[in-house]
């Protein structure tokens, strides 16, 4: 394998700096969120998260080292492996809080549904590479697309993890709409989903319905399901303009804020750093997303554009949904905040995705063989 010197010249340092900045803030914030747990057994989560970042960086290097066109070539295989892991969860998965989401090997637990988010993006890129039709797509192709999405969607829903499965669908449709569809298909999908949406209510578990209801009115059950969102809003709002100071957030340090290392990690940041800190964080996220769009636009080929677009929207939707959720704009669904929430699978997959962005970015000038 001959290594092109231009790959180094064109390496996307800016992207690396942006991602390292966010991950650094994430670690700092996680230290604060876990500060009050001093003395509890096991390693603190920020240390664990640092390990995950290291693993993620290795995978990131792997992801930009291999030419993305080779990855595209094996896209369906990669997606199939990811679906196989998802399938294994049903047999080998660990059950926590009533749902089966985790695979554990050698002490590492891994969430295949996170991996699926990324492999679906790759598989879709491959699909559009093979089926370019400028005038939109026919139902025949749409059925293949549905198959790519429906299998993981249903499996994740069975775990059950409604939030992640809906997220997968959201990401899927984002890419599909980006590529364009015939108007009548768009209309029929809209019609079908508006009919199916109320049906969702009936397949939802009780706790999921509780979440929707308490989203609509958090004070309905302030000590039960509404508790999370009320405490989150108090934490964020009480931060004010300048915040309460690092390690000084009372909502966080006195544990009034639930799930503060995972889903509600943003509230920790907002409480301690205030509007000023949050503004900076949002600015960095926006930079990352716009940078991702730039990479997508500058790609030499369609799969590059699509992967870059998919990965960027993956990050965008997670940021938007997670922050919207802790701000009380959306119901509580288990979507992590990229690079800030504690979670090995999420971190590793995000960094791998960033690796793909770098892959596409550094090869924008490379002529095809």
């Amino acid at each position, binding site marked *: 394998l001959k290594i092109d010197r231009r790959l180094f010249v064109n390496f996307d340092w800016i992207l690396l700096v942006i991602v390292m900045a966010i991950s650094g803030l994430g670690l700092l914030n996680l230290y604060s969120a876990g500060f009050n747990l001093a003395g509890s057994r096991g390693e603190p989560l920020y240390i664990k998260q640092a390990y995950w970042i290291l693993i993620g960086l290795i995978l990131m290097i792997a992801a930009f080292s291999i030419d993305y066109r080779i990855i595209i070539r094996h896209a369906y295989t990669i997606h199939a492996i990811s679906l196989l892991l998802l399938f294994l969860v049903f047999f080998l998965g660990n059950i926590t809080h009533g749902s089966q989401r985790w695979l554990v090997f050698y002490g590492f637990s891994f969430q295949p549904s996170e991996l699926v988010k990324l492999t679906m993006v790759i598989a879709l890129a491959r699909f559009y590479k093979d089926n370019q039709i400028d005038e939109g797509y026919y139902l025949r192709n749409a059925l293949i697309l549905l198959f790519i999405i429906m299998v993981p969607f249903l499996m994740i829903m069975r775990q059950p993890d409604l939030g992640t499965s809906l997220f997968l669908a959201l990401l899927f449709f984002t890419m599909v709409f980006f590529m364009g569809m015939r108007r009548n298909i768009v209309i029929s999908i809209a019609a079908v989903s508006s009919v199916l949406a109320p049906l969702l209510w009936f397949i939802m578990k009780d706790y999921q319905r509780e979440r929707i209801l308490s989203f609509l009115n958090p004070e309905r059950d302030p000590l039960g399901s509404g508790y999370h969102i009320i405490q989150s809003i108090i934490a964020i709002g009480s931060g004010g303009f300048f915040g309460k100071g690092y390690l000084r957030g009372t*909502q966080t340090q006195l544990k009034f804020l639930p799930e503060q290392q995972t889903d509600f990690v943003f509230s920790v940041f907002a409480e301690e750093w205030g509007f000023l800190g949050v503004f900076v964080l949002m600015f960095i996220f926006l930079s990352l997303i716009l940078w991702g769009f730039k990479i997508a636009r500058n790609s030499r080929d369609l799969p590059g554009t699509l992967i870059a677009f998919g990965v960027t929207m993956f990050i965008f939707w997670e940021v*938007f949904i997670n922050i919207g959720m802790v701000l009380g704009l959306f119901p509580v669904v288990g979507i992590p905040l990229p690079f800030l929430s504690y979670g090995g699978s999420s971190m590793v997959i995000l960094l791998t995705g960033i690796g793909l962005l770098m892959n596409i970015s550094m090869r924008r000038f490379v002529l095809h063989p």
Partner: protein
Amino acid sequence: MLEKQNRLTDYDPGKFKRKFNVLLWLVSFALFLLISRLWYLQIIKGDDLRQRSENNRIRIQEVKPLRGLIYDARGDILVDNQPSFDVSLIPEDTKDIKGVMKRLADLCDQDSVDLAKKLSAVKFRKPFVPIKIDKDIGRDKLAIVETNSLNLPGLMVDVVPVRKYVYGEEMAHVLGYVGEISAGELGDEYYKDYRSDDIVGKYGTERYLDRYLKGVSGGEQVEVNVRGRKLSVLGRVEPVPGFNITLTLDARLQKMCWDAFTEKAGSVIVMDPRDGSLLALISKPSFNPNLFNRGIPEEIWESLSKDVLSPLQNRSISGQYPPGSLYKLIVAAAALEEGVINKDTKIGCNGTFDMGNRTFRCWRKAGHGLVNLHQAIVESCDVYFYHLGEMLGVEKLADYSKKFGFGSKTFIELYGEKEGLVPTKRWKRERFKESWQGGETISLSIGQGFVLVTPLQLIRAYSAIANGGILYKPRLIKRIATAEGDIVREFIPEKESSIPLRKKTLEILRYALWGAVNEENGTGWSLKREARDVSGKTGTAQVVAMPKDGKEEEKEIPYKIRDHALFVCYAPRNTPEIAVLVVVEHGGHGGSTAAPIARRIVDGYFDLKKYDAGLMAQSIKEAASVSDISSRDGI
């Protein structure tokens, strides 16, 4: 294949340009939406939500004040606060509750099942709220728990101040005891500003002066975490300790009375006749008030409340007895004042007095012969007083009884006082729907029959004879002062009334009382002391009608129907400064049972007085020698 390759190289990214421009706006708008919401929450609602976060973490906790102390007149401490140690467990702080309980049980030689029961008895509780496992552990156990604290995670020792009654049962009836406020008391209007876990006085001075003793609670602003666990103290308002009380009692004299009174049941009161101050007040049997501190064990409460001798009753203020011969002085006063007799009027006593078909007897079967009033009091001749009673009539007797303070409360600063009973014709009609019988007046004239008095009423009446006719309100509380010593309230002696007696009448009565002790045939002769100048009167109050033949020996009579023995005295004769009343329930004759007790108390009082004077002289001498030295230094 080639065509496909071409397509790739022909790829024109520009065709997505419009879409990316739209996306850029969409993404920016989405993030702007989030920023707007953040602005709303953090800037517009920031202060409200900051307040809510403070409310989350800050709790106000009550800090209980120390209860006021109680001293005797000389400043000796009677009731103190001392630490008591409780052991409690916070289950959240230990992983192995059973193990901890077992180790604790082993260390303290206690039944672990017992402890586990206590733990499981608590069903509903908030997290991090300690469960009380053991109350009031001794210092030995405390040392064990403290040294093994590392092996007993989750276990904590609380220090709770409890009352220490220095004199135990000797002063229980005066000082009382405390306990947690009951549901009934909480519902009472009087306790409306009390809280459910307050300690309140339940009896005695503790109860009477509870409002002064309890103090004012302080508060602590504490930071808690989500589980309510106290993390730090942010602010504190110190509690104000309760006021200290000084009583008029002399603890040494009280102890002397307690030691002198070796009988089963009865009362001793020592009063300063000059101002009505109580110097000692005991009631026997008594109880140990220290047992009530942390909630009295059920079985002890049972045995106390079911005891036939009722140790929970303060006989000095709520025991009601026939005054017996002690009543004769009131009859004599009435007779002299009403002019029925003068001091020289003589009446013959042959041992009996007939009234209709009834015969009333004198305690001396042979009779006293021809006696005047002085002799009649000295020798306690019953027949003489039967005649006086007959001449005066029940209404006059009742009238003078009331003047001496019988039949109504003295309003001593203690709860539970009884009024006694002064019978009148009207009372008899209302009570029994029967008219007054002449014979009942005869019984009344020697303090038998319906008339009932409390020991406190008796000593007050005799103090009035001693001091020239002034009826004082009994004074138990001398002073209330803050913990720093600033006087809150000084209790000055209160005259209730002056008994309208002529000076001459008083002189006759006081001479007779002197005679009863100091003349050879006086009933209180046994009390005579060369050095003292004691005046007094014996009394024997019949519980059942006197046996006809009088043959039976005292000891053979069942306890319950034996006579009450009474004795009252004061000293010195002309300038009385101490009055003593002894009531021995079922003690037989006043002269033989009650008088010796009184004698020891009077002796003890004067010994103490001499001792105090000696101390005083010595301290004056010391002060003088100090000033000597200093003046020498000056030269």
